[in-house]
């Protein structure tokens, strides 16, 4: 299996401070890697740096064989990466439909607004509502639908379950599962281990700006004591 994303020795941070201190991570094509870690270890910093929203100090980010470290976000986006940000960040003054249309490429692609509505009928019902009138779950669906329209090869999902009720997380998980089933590649940043285990093929654990564990999901699940030691949770 070829690797879609290969990150090596990635160092980055804010205003000279170091948050990522040499991160190595690979995402094989067609697989989902869960990135776990406690609050503040640098998970969001990592996806932002991969996406080109934050300039790395050093290291390499290769997407489909192309070196993208230091490239601006629109270049990374055009190379096939898409981020569903923590906290959703839908365009609040625009309607659901406009939020989707803004992302729809002029020349068309595998995804259309109608197909997004098929995947998430809830959005179709709310198509005329403004972004800031949506519930958290609906905003999350909109944030996912919006990036699908860019036909990404790699999804960067930053805590899609953040702040959502369990029943809503379940709906989001269903949507993501359908995308996984058709072979989308993703980095899934999650605190919700149920969701991470349900979707991910592999698990990577970050601590103090480094990856301190990586391995198959099943193996990670089976050793609860190690999981506890790595994450500080049961």
């Amino acid at each position: 299996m070829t690797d879609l994303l290969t990150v090596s020795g990635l160092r980055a941070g804010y205003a000279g401070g170091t948050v990522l201190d040499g991160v190595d991570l690979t995402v094989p094509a067609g697989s989902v890697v869960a990135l776990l870690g406690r609050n503040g270890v640098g998970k969001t910093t990592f996806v932002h740096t991969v996406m080109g929203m934050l300039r790395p100090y050093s290291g390499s980010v290769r997407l489909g064989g192309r070196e993208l470290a230091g490239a601006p976000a629109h270049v990374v986006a055009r190379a096939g990466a898409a981020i569903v940000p923590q906290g959703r960040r839908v365009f609040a003054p625009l309607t659901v439909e406009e939020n989707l249309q803004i992302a729809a490429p002029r020349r068309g692609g595998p995804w259309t607004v109608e197909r997004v509505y098929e995947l998430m009928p809830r959005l179709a019902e709310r198509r005329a509502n403004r972004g800031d009138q949506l519930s958290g779950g609906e905003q999350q669906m909109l944030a996912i639908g919006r990036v699908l329209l860019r036909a990404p090869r790699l999804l960067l999902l930053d805590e899609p379950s953040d702040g959502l009720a369990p029943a809503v997380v379940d709906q989001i998980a269903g949507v993501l599962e359908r995308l996984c089933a058709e072979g989308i590649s993703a980095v899934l940043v999650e605190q919700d281990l149920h969701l991470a285990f349900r979707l991910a093929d592999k698990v990577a654990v970050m601590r103090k700006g480094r990856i301190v564990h990586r391995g198959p999901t099943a193996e990670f699940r089976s050793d609860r004591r190690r999981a506890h030691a790595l994450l500080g949770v049961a």
Partner: protein
Amino acid sequence: MKAVETTAPAPAVAARPRRPARRGRAVAAAVTAAALLAAVPLVLGAYPVSMMTRMLAFAVLVLSVDLLTGITGMPTLGQAAYFGVGAYTAALVGVHLTSDGAVQVAAALLAGLAAAAVTGWIAVRAHGIVFLMLTLAIGESVHQLADTWSLVGGGNGLAGMPPVSVLGTALPAAGFVYWWVLAVAAAAFAVVALVARSPYGRTLRGIRDNEARMRALGYRPGPAKFGVFCLAGAVAAVGGALWAAQVRFVSPGDLGFEVAALALLSVVIGGSGTLWGPCLGAALVLLVRDNLSAHVGGHGALVLGAVFVAVVFTMPRGLAGLARRPRRTEARS
């Protein structure tokens, strides 16, 4: 990426609710407004008509400010510069070349476009308050230039512009100039409204809302912002040409800081981002400055300041907000 196989049948998505009806209403409102405005010279006397002509020209400037400030989220204090470039270009064409209004407007449009392209190249790279300061600097530089350059009359201004003619016929009476100005202003409004509703306009509103997010979706905000800056420069210059057609005298005061500030004030009072609201704001602001000012002992600026404060506190969406029906329960969880 392959298609997701949907097992469930496609949901019965109701055929685009309300959209066409809303657009129909907007067009109907625009046509009605244009018809009412067209009837003005038949009812009012010469002075009110000339007053309204200036309001229309100023509204075109305000429209360009709303395009930048309200639609794209780039608050500007520099649009009076392009308004001035348009006014001076039209006046120079009028004095030296031809009294044909269409030629004057076209020349002003090109001059405004060129001026905005040269200055916007640098300006659009800045954000927020730095952008505001840069536009202020552009405005002041152009004002200085107009004030000192003898070719355009320096501080004395540029006089001697013959009455504008349209289709080979001179327009001597105020009513005819008004109709000409109304026609061009309506065209400018239509162009800006169409741009605001186009996919490009959606991109601009996305940039206003969250530039980083647009970048992450694969857009380069730079060219989009440069494009709208050039368009706004051209629109402001057309407003300037219309102003010159009515006033037939252009002076550095027409492109000073006060004009730029009043234009921005009109946008806030009218309701930024709505286009039609700021046009109403423009009329109100000029009315206060040029007419009521005399009745309050020349304290027009004070009155405008008070109006501004009142609007900000009582109508956060400006005059346009008054037309909006109260929203039903805003579902949030």
